């Protein structure tokens, strides 16, 4: 089953291909995502997850609130819709 990533604000849906993180994936596809540390420290890339589920591939310093994900530390577990 194809996993897709939907950037809702940008109005784009892209098939997930292996990337270090959702942040890296967004950058590859020209989606501007806010970020600073890239390591789960600063919280700048916190984004609302509208649908789907993610896996944390790097442990962030603090987990964000429910419904919010850190793009720099996650990859999709299922197809996801991001408020981005």
């Amino acid at each position, binding site marked *: 089953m194809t996993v897709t990533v939907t950037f809702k604000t940008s109005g784009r849906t892209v098939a997930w291909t292996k990337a270090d993180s959702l942040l890296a994936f967004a950058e590859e596809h020209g989606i501007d995502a806010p970020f*600073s*540390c*890239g*390591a*789960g*420290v*600063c919280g700048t890339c916190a984004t609302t997850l509208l649908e789907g589920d993610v896996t944390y591939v790097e*442990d962030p*310093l*603090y987990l964000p609130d429910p419904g919010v994900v850190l793009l720099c530390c996650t990859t999709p577990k299922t197809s996801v819709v991001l408020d981005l």
Partner: protein
Amino acid sequence: MNVEHWGDSAWGLNRGDAMTVEANYLYMTDNLLDPSHVAWVHQTSFGNAACADDVPDTTIADNGVIVSRWMRDTEPAPFYQPFLKFRGNCDRKQHYEVRYPSHAIIKAIFVPAGTGGDDKPLHQDVFLMDSYNFLTPINENLTRYYWFQMRNFAPNDQAVSAAFATSVRTAFEEDKAIVQAVHRGMNNKKSNNIDLKIDKGPLHFRKRLAQMIAAEKPTLVAAE
């Protein structure tokens, strides 16, 4: 606490020293868990430009945080050069471990260039130095800092111990100047703090320690 090689006749001991630092002890743990500080703070002693390059690995352990890395084929830093048994460039490992609540073990490994690695046996000419560092808070703004070092050579050489004692003190004076300036700066900061990737080790240490302190508080109240 287990001190490796304590009482080992092949190892030397620098009995160490102490100083009072006009800063909160957590700025000292921040400093220790950022090995890149060695490039900037210790240019004449422990460090050289190579210490600014490779990103270290951060390991979160139950009893503390370890930040470590191998630096490959670099010139030995000035502090270590006279004590190395080999010539030429080295592979150098920096291991900075800070354990809860506030003691640090710094391990330095120097081997001839091309022979270093966690998966390789130590070269016969290896230089090993383990530094044990104890940060004891006096209050929010003052820390008493104690230390001693173990080394894998010149076990009974008083001249080597004396040279170490002087050099380590000089280097730690460099830390003291920076950490005190950080403490003053953070108490008077004019702009927002920005945390970087390199701050992950120090911040994780602070987070876990704060949790441990919070967990102790109900017990203290109950005892009153």
